[in-house]
């Protein structure tokens, strides 16, 4: 386990998903997702992304957000990976990187679209975000569908 990397990965993930680190760890998937990134794009590229994020840390929120957009999401190499991290957390699926990324930075053998694990599906942030449970999992209790969804504050 890459302890320092996972801390930065969680801070980055919390900022870009709008969920708290406790909630991200609470999915039980943080190690799995960082491992997925390492396996598909390689630890070097992951560290490049995390370092770029760590450099934004001391700034004010508004400024940081602007830099986040420009230097990470707007970066040809790091942007698609950052977007993939958001999707990983929300739906538990790794989406194959865009064609132009693969042409520019090289095709990774493991880079295919797949659900990371059965647990990744049930723990997707999409479900708490809409106040629902994943179909077929995390049963909310008989009759709970008659109650309004509880949407967490993000």
């Amino acid at each position, binding site marked *: 386990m890459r302890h320092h990397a996972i801390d930065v990965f969680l801070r980055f993930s919390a900022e870009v998903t709008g969920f*708290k*680190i*406790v*909630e991200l*760890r*609470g*999915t*039980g998937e943080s190690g799995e997702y960082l491992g997925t990134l390492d396996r598909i794009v390689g630890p070097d590229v992951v560290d490049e992304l995390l370092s770029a994020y760590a450099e934004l840390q001391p700034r004010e929120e508004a400024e940081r957000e602007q830099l986040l957009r420009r230097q990470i999401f707007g970066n040809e190499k790091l942007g698609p990976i950052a977007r993939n991290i958001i999707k990983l957390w929300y739906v538990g699926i790794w989406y194959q990187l865009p064609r132009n990324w693969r042409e520019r930075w090289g095709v990774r053998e493991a880079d295919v679209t797949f659900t990371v*694990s*059965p*647990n990744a599906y*049930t723990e997707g942030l999409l479900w708490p975000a809409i106040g629902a449970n994943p179909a077929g999992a*995390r*049963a*909310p*209790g*008989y*009759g*709970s569908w008659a*109650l309004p969804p*509880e949407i967490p504050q993000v």
Partner: protein
Amino acid sequence: MAATDIQTIDCLKDYLYRAMQLEHATIPAYLSAMYSIHPQTNSDAYHILRVVVVEEMLHLTIAANLMNAVGGKPDLTRADFVPEFPTYLPDGEKDFQVSLQCFSPSALDTFLKIERPGLAPDANTRRIPRRSRGTAKLAACPEDEELEFYSIGDFYQEIERGFEHLYRVHGAALFSGDPKRQITSEYYYSGGGELRPVVCMESARAAIGLITGQGEGDGGGIYDAERELAHFYRFEQLKLGKYYEPGDVPHDPKGPPCQVDWTAVYPTYTNPRLEKFDASSELYEYARDFNRDYAEFLALVTEAFNGKPQLLLDAVPKMFRLRNGAMQLMRNPLPASKASADSAAAGQPDGPANAAPTFEVAEFAR
């Protein structure tokens, strides 16, 4: 008929409050083990724990029905209702304590003790010989007496004797409670057995028989009256690594293997307390929120048990949210600075420990 200590209806109500405390005290312990199991692993253990804990919830509800039947008021919000863990069981089993801990061999050993079959074929041996002790403990009844039963079954036998005795004295007047306060199956579904109203001696006997049968088996066998394996023997399968089959005798299961992976478990901090959390952390807030939700849940169940049984239906989604909250905590590491002083203490997992719900509800008392 053997003599009973339960000579008054008030004394019976004290015993029934103890029974509710007792049934409830097992639930945080079983949930702490069950939710610590990694998803998609240990399905044998997970399912055994789930059956047992759901039946404990049924037993708690049956105890409330017995209380209501004799005109008592079930109260899950009393200051002493939720124990501080580790705790002795409220029926006075003094040779072990129950901890909140992750699924582990030591947790399983405790569960086997909780569910152990009764010692006592007759009234003279149902109590453990009285010892002198320095520690004070709340007495049930009469005021200065401490309960000391060997098993939950022995404790319920005493309650049944009390019912029989008071029924002889008072007749049907013993069952003075409003039948509308009884929780029946329309409010309580797929909860480990059928819930029947307690309105007479016969239904009281059946209710007590269901509780003891599900816990430790009927008449020394491994099954209860519904031909379901009793809790003790369900847990013993995990200990012995084999399932029981029909025809098996106690302690010698001959069925297929029952597998346990002790490593596929979140290593949660044993008997966690909020004080072990960094009070300025997000994690602390979540742990405290769980306790608040749990306190509110117990208050809602209390209302349901006091004439509003339909509220139990509202309690169901709250239970599932408690589950989600507990699992979330257990996947978060407890920062070392607060926990490390105890990491070498007995009963803690090796290495860094994770958080877990603390079930401390006192600050949210109503």
